[in-house]
């Protein structure tokens, strides 16, 4: 799966285009070409944008939800949740629904939630000030980024006690005959007659494939579901993505041990194995997503635990 944003220009496509209506890469729309037509189109869309931004932002009082900052739980308590957001957000308890800080900030910023503290309505800055003591800024950023794209994002539950797996080295034990006859060998492919290349490859397979070893699991921060998911807060299905947030300036790329820790906290992918070995390798066994945040800019990285299988 190569991401299509990195796709290389398909030059053949050009030959299929008959007229001069060919696209050129790397040039922005509306690079000034000196024509009047272009200028008028540009003006029109710019004015439309100003009109839209001029409109006062408001939420109808009917839809506004009120919450109270609970300093003890470091959450926002909502007594009367309403609206579709609460299908996928917050945690319902017997008396009320509780929103995590990133959820509260997200809802407040889009004008759905008014947070109160000791009877006073808090400004957006006020809400952020309270929430930032309870949630990393990077996490809030990644949360709202994915929410705005339509994903359903839930805090990952605390890890259950995992039983660390023992070291597994997949090694083929074909060393015996080699050792027995070794004084005569000068190379690793030691037999005098080989019947096939796979036999040669088998004898050369001395460096083993390593798998999951004894590691402390490192939990994902968020479980992320694709926008169309039929989601039930009470009975969440396994998520589509496991996301962990990383501060690019304070953390380096994970070491192998850390990477294994990440994999140890997620289950194996349940997609049907693909037929082609290449796609099977790319699909891998487990995957986690790291959201790398540098000064407010987010870049997502997918890590896939995989194993290169023997070809032929």
């Amino acid at each position, binding site marked *: 799966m190569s991401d299509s*944003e990195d796709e290389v220009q398909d030059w053949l496509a050009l030959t299929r285009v008959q007229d001069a209506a060919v696209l*050129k890469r790397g040039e922005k729309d509306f690079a000034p070409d*000196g024509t009047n037509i272009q200028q008028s189109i540009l003006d029109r869309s710019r004015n439309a944008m100003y009109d839209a931004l001029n409109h006062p932002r408001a939420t109808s009082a009917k839809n506004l939800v009120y919450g109270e900052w609970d300093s003890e739980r470091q959450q926002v308590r909502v007594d009367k949740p309403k609206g579709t957001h609460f299908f996928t957000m917050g945690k319902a308890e017997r008396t009320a629904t509780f929103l995590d800080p990133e959820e509260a900030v997200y809802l407040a910023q889009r004008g759905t939630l008014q947070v109160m503290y000791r009877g006073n309505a808090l400004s957006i800055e006020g809400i952020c000030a309270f929430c930032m003591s309870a949630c990393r800024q990077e996490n809030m950023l990644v949360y709202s980024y994915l929410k705005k794209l339509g994903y359903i994002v839930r805090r990952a539950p605390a890890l259950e006690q995992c039983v660390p797996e023992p070291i597994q080295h997949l090694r083929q034990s074909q060393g015996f005959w080699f050792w027995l006859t070794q004084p005569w060998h000068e190379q690793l492919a030691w037999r005098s007659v080989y019947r096939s290349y796979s036999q040669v490859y088998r004898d050369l397979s001395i460096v083993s494939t390593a798998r999951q070893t004894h590691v402390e699991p490192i939990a994902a921060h968020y479980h992320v579901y694709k926008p169309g998911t039929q989601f039930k807060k009470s009975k969440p299905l396994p998520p589509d993505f496991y996301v962990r947030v990383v501060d690019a300036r304070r953390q380096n790329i994970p070491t192998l041990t850390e990477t294994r820790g990440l994999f140890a906290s997620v289950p194996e992918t349940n997609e049907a194995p693909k037929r082609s070995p290449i796609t099977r390798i790319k699909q891998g066994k487990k995957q986690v997503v790291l959201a790398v945040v540098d000064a407010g800019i987010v*870049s997502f*990285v997918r890590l896939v635990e995989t194993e290169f299988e023997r*070809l032929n």
Partner: protein
Amino acid sequence: MKGSWNKKINEVYVDPLPFEVQPLPTLILHNPVSVLYFLYKLCFSPAPRQVKIAGTFDPNDPSMAVRVTDESTMLRLWEMGFFGKGSLSRSEPSWYGRTCRRLGLDGGEMSLEELTELRRQKRRILKRERDLAERQELHNKLVAEGRAEPVNLIELAALAEEDAQPPIRDEDRELVKGDTIIKLEHLQLMPCEALFLQLGLGVLDISDNDGVMSIMKSVESLAKGKLLTEYIAYHYYRSLGWCVRSGVKFGTDFILYRRGPPFQHAEFAVMAVYANRHEIHDWWWSQGVARVVGSVKKTLAFAYVEGPDPDLVDYSEIKTISDWRALLAQYSVQSVIYSRWTPNRTRD
């Protein structure tokens, strides 16, 4: 064209390694003749003679390359497993054929880099035509608005078309000796390849100034320290049947082909990392590599090599092939794919 090309490369590149194997005949159980023939072959087939290749190593050459100069073995290394790089070619040692063709002599079929050049030429022409068409269209718009005079740019450009360069240069005289062209090219093997051919398959003898190099000398010259980490990864993917070549063009240690360059593009780009000593890499490093690899439609994989610290291995103790085998056996490789996730493209 495509079909015959496929047929041709399938005929030329049959063997994945420069190593002779002797397949057994098909066994038909109810046919006694077949059974007897099978048993005869099983018990009495003589060991095939392996073709020995001679390479030279110059310890003072900073490139660390092992050179192969014999023309037939150069070709053999390329055709059987795609080992090495022609010193005057992109990869396959094709300089001689290309030069013969350029000078109008018979040089056989076109090489891969000539095909690439042909494709690029077509692309350049296409780009020029497209550019002209776009400029013409813009000009027409300006004419329609009464801001320019009508001109046919395409016709103007056709008039200014330049002549092609003559294919024969003055220096070419120096290439001719008697009535043949001298063979200037040699094949360069990177340390991993040389070591794999010497100690893995036993088909390469490497000589330095003192004669044929011993196992210990080869290991010390070609697999010390960081080179050992690379070699472990190289050996691992080779032994799984992948065609492994240098990934320097893409900023990685290796690229992996399913079969080899003529068949399809490399699928994976591999970075070998020694896992037990924490090598510090920041996100800017890995993102840079991943970005380049992604833009050429390959998948980046980290090959984490685990085992004894390559800087602390006593290389002078590796005297026999069993020592070498024992060292390799202490290592394992874990592959982890690293790629960019663009959430606005996976929403479904």
